[in-house]
């Protein structure tokens, strides 16, 4: 009988102690986190660490302040002048950083390119405007509709290629602004998957092989199209590792070097990397440690909602890489200092 009472007493005492401990340890404000192990964490900081041996570039000049509060695109002309699209203007800088000229616009530009004849093609929300070097507007093409979000322009000899992220299509115009054809619409018969664009980043460029290169960011790859819209090949793979593209939609922007290698920019996990013409990973130009103040620890603060925080990139004939930091609105110039393996 006594043993029974002792057993009940101990049991009740134990239950009271456990309940009190559970109550004390109860996290009502969530400050202790989920309590899950490290294997469940999406730790971007770890991913942001890059082997220093892979970084073959260094910043070679003082960064250039654009003076914009919201910059979007960068382009170089044949003389090496730097064109920046931001706020409601285009600013043209010498490589020394001196402001050469400014073209005021009626609306915010998202992208631009400078043709060999020095005409400036600017994507302003849903239409293209063409300017001369003196800042005179030469043409304003028809609007592509409310849904259009123009994010990239490239000019070849007689064609202007425009990336419309809103409509998920590439538009091919002649230089007078006449629409010739549309490229990249989903077409099973032509084996075209269509562009998957979760955020307003959709870049293109024309390579020296005469093919159009277009980022398909949702598929984390760069696709090669003929100007007639045939998909020839693609490269790029999804991976959180440095060799691949990660997140919902990367790369956000790219440029093509003289040797036809690709310089890619990724958002979220902000990295600028080099791939050879076949798409094999070559090296890193700069990672979060080099590109973000505070380094890897601040990676996750940027690009809220995946809608912002994409850097743009341009290259010159000497292989220097001009990165438009859209967070600080500065241009940073990187030069190769080490030979790759």
């Amino acid at each position: 009988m006594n043993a029974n009472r002792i057993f009940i007493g101990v049991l009740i005492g134990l239950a009271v102690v456990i309940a009190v401990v559970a109550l004390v340890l109860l996290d009502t404000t969530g400050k202790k986190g989920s309590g899950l192990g490290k294997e469940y964490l999406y730790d971007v900081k770890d991913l942001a660490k890059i082997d220093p041996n892979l970084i073959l570039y260094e910043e070679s000049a003082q960064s250039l302040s654009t003076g914009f509060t919201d910059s979007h695109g960068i382009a170089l002309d044949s003389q090496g002048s730097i064109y920046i699209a931001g706020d409601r203007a285009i600013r043209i800088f010498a490589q020394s950083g001196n402001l050469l000229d400014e073209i005021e616009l009626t609306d915010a530009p998202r992208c631009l390119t400078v043709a060999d004849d020095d005409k400036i093609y600017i994507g302003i929300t849903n239409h293209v405007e063409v300017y001369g070097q003196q800042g005179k507007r030469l043409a304003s093409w028809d609007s592509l509709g409310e849904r259009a979000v123009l994010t990239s322009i490239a000019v070849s000899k007689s064609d202007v290629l425009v990336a419309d992220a809103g409509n998920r299509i590439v538009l091919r115009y002649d230089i007078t602004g006449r629409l010739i054809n549309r490229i990249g619409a989903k077409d099973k018969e032509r084996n075209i998957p269509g562009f998957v664009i979760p955020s307003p980043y959709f870049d293109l460029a024309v390579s020296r092989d005469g093919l159009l290169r277009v980022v398909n960011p949702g598929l984390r790859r760069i696709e090669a199209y003929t100007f007639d819209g045939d998909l020839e090949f693609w490269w790029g793979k999804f991976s959180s590792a440095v060799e691949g593209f990660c997140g919902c939609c990367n790369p956000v922007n790219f440029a093509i070097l003289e040797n036809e290698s690709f310089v890619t920019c990724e958002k979220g996990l902000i990295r600028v990397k080099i791939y050879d013409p076949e798409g094999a990973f070559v090296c890193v130009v700069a990672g979060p440690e080099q590109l973000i103040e505070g380094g890897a620890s601040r990676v996750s603060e940027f690009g809220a909602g995946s809608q912002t925080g994409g850097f743009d990139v341009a290259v010159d004939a000497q292989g220097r890489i001009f990165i438009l930091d859209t967070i600080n609105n500065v241009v940073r110039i990187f030069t190769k200092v080490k030979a790759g393996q």
Partner: protein
Amino acid sequence: MMRFDNIIIGMALSLILCGVTIGAERFPPPDFVETDHVIPSPTVPGPRQDIYEYIDAVVLLAALGLSSYLVLRRRSRRAIFVLMVFSLLYFGFWRKGCVCSVGAVQNIVLSIFDRDYTVPITVAVFFLLPLVFALFFGRVFCAAVCPLGAIQDLVLLRPISVPNWLESGLRLFAYVYLAAAVLFAATGSAFVICRYDPFVAFFRLSGNLNILIIGACLLVISVFIGRPYCRFICPYGVLLRQLSRLSKWRVTITPDECIQCRLCEDSCPFGAIKKPTTDWPTTEYSRSKKRLAILILLLPVLMFLCGWASSGLKTVTSRMHATVRLAERIYLEDTGKVEGTTDASLAFRATGKEQKELYADASNIRAEFKLGGWFFGGFVGLVIGLKLIAVSVWRKRTDYEAGRAGCLACGRCFQYCPKEHERLKKIKEARAKY
């Protein structure tokens, strides 16, 4: 006028938010062209239809009425048990323990102190109906309607008695809990009764692990000690106890007259049966009289001391409020006393709101806790004082009685009374006759 201003500000904020929403929609969502996946249209689950809330109120009213009938007229433990199981299934597992009368206390308090908060009619009904029934019929809500009581009652298999001194001491916690719940609800800090509801995780078959552990521990204790939550913790039980003291009709152990057989003496697992008392010993009488006089004089002092102590704890108690916690965090971050940020501090900084404004808000809330602490402590002091006074008051009792406040009207004691057996026999005979 103030209301009108609030409406204007609200409309302006809504318009700004609409602007943000339109801005966010500027870029169309992905269309997943490569997989033919169609993005489903976002659907917002509608609120529970009003009709069900009224049904809940009607079920509550019916359950309380039936419980009163079963406890006072039918005097059937079996029927009370069946109703209790129904209530557990309906209000507990089916309605997921919400709305519950216990937590409704906080809604009522908040509506008193926050004029922008309106109590839903169902919540008001859930709060008031059991109190009204307690005023007329005793704690019939606890008997067979409250799911929290029911789940404990079901596992009561090996009841042991709790000494009176311990019972009385532990019961104090319920008063403190009630006062704390009122303080936190009045300041808009938290609904602690809901937050620490030990059984809601069982009803919902999901919940915080710690709460599940606390609930499981309470159920283990409930195997031996009858309804520990109801007796020692339930803040709503405090209100029911006081109203039940005034009840017009209440549970009686015997249907007729007490024959002092003592068979019912140990029948109540909740220690609610009061034994007959002897006359007050003369020596004890004078000593108690002095003690009573001293205690009555000391009561205001005790209330003041408890109020002063509680008010002084405002720095600690006010941390229950999210704004105070955020202000403290921002201060620590700004002065470099902590590293890193929290989601809340990041979100605050993203609003662009000034720290001064936040500190002013936190300071106001702390002042509310200072004032509230006086009431909280004063109430606790009053309860302690009255409990001490009650010890010095001799209540004469000639029969075995179900305690007016403590009786949960479970009906267990009925079958221990020989008079009850006589009554049932008579009923049986009468039925056989007709």
